[in-house]
Each structure stands twice: as C-alpha cells, then as structure tokens.
C-alpha cells in the first residue's frame, strides 16, 4: 500500500480530526453515558453487555492496521514510531489498574469519555475532570521519575 504524504500545512491539523473522530466513536458507542458504563460493569446485577462490542470493534481495527504497518520504517509525518517502552508487569501496573478500576466503577467515567463529556458541558464531567487532573498531578508530583513514560522519551527498561 502506497500513501502519498499530505502537505505539511494541512497535515498539522490531522490530530484535531482524529480527536473529533474519537469523540464521535465514544458518543455513538454509548461510552459517554456513565449509566451505560456502570450497567456494563454490573455483571452480577442488571448487566448490559453492549460496551464489550466497543472493545471488539476498536481492538479489531487497531490490530489489523498495526500489523499492516509493522513493516513501515517510520510513520507518515514523524521521524519514528514511539513504541511504548515499559515491558514488565509490576506492582505499579497492578496497583494503578486496581485504583483506576475502582474510580471507574464509582463514577462511570474513564478519561476519554470524561473529556468528551466536558466538551458537552455535562454537570458530571464538570465534577469529574478537574478531580481527574488533580489525581494525575498528585501522581506526577509523587513520582517525578515516571513523568516521561508516556511520551516515549524515557530510557527503556530492561527488555
């Protein structure tokens, strides 16, 4: 597959388009409705399994594209692919996932849908998002060394 790179001027704006597309996907899927998320997690009660299909659709598309792109030397508009560097399952991963899951179940929000709902100015997002940013800030204050993990600039851990 050959793709012609878009001119750099127009290409600058592409992430805006991706954000819009991502927001539309979250809205169409129902992920932006906290009651729907809570019903999805209510496996032991009145379970609504719909949101499992969001994962099927999103993971399916991403897996196919990612495999096809594995041979590309670099992305179309950047010098290199920023592969995630940490590779170990450790206590931080497990503890973080537990804390996140508890907050997700308590509120019905995870970060993406919360930001979209903030754009829609829902009352729930107006409470949730500032608290979420505070939580991120507290973490990054407590562990400054881990700050750069997400932008691919951190020194790789042991392979």
């Amino acid at each position, binding site marked *: 597959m050959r793709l012609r790179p878009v001119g750099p001027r127009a290409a600058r704006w592409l992430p805006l388009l991706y954000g819009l597309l991502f927001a539309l996907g979250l809205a*169409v899927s129902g992920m932006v409705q906290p009651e729907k998320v809570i019903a999805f997690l209510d496996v032991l009660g009145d379970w609504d399994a719909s949101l499992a299909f*969001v994962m099927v659709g999103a993971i399916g598309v991403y897996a196919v594209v990612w495999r096809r792109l594995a041979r590309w030397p670099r992305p179309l508009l950047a010098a290199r692919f920023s592969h995630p560097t940490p590779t170990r399952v450790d206590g931080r991963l497990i503890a973080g996932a537990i804390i996140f899951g508890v907050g997700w179940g308590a509120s019905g929000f995870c970060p993406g849908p919360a*930001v979209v709902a903030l754009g829609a100015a829902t009352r729930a997002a107006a409470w949730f998002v500032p608290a979420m940013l505070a939580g991120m800030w507290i973490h990054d204050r407590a562990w400054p060394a881990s700050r750069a993990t997400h932008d691919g600039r951190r020194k790789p851990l042991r392979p």
Partner: protein
Amino acid sequence: MHTSFTPLAALAGGVLIGSAAALLWATHGRIAGITGIVAGIFRARGADLEWRLLFIAGLLGGGRLIAWAWPAAFGARAPRSALALVAGGLLVGFGTRLANGCTSGHGVCGVARLSVRSIVATVVFMAAGIATVAITRRLMVGAGP
C-alpha cells in the same frame, strides 16, 4: 439501573475509535492513550505539545458538537453523586498514571498489540470496576427505604 442492549451502535463506535487511534499511529507514530496524551500536555513542548492539544481540542469540540446535534448521546443525569464523581476522578487520574494507561492506551491499543502488560492491566481494571459496582449496588440497596 437498566439500560438497553445496543451491540451494533457499540460496535460501530468501537470501529470509529479504533480508526482514529490507528490513524494517529500511521501518521504520528503515537499511541492514542488519552491518559498519556492529557498528562503529556503539562510538560511537552513544540510539535509534541501541538498534536496533543489538537487531539484534545478535537475531543472537547467533538463533545460540544455532539451535545448540540444529538443531546441524548450523553444520556440522562449521571447516576452518581458529586462526591462519587470527585472521588472517582481522583482515583482515575492517579491510577491511570500509575498504571501508565487507561481504557484506550491499555484496553484498545495495548490489547490489540497483544502487550502482556496491557492485557493484565485491562483484566485487572475491569475486575476492579465490576467489584466496585457490585459493592456500590449492595450499599445503595442497603441504604434504601
């Protein structure tokens, strides 16, 4: 609380989410993890800051447009109190940074790459979410009339 089963809408939404994430990988070589993108704006500079801000502007602007064109997309009133939303927000912000990812970074991109870390994180946060909702429901039923 009861919500209706909408597998096709969920699947279609998932395809859009996966497409947006895949495009970001193809052009910018970046993982579309919302936690990482948001947390990154506080320290990124130059071009690295620009794409993050544009992506987040797309999420916010998309929310605004959808609320205008299709207000029902955001559902009825949030089922949780302000206290639960604030406590939940703190936990989600802290936990996603500690785990280095959330539903998008680990749950979609990481699982699709068959990353062991992401698969473990996804199983753990799903289980913690399910347990939390089960316990909350019990407490709410217990506190009822």
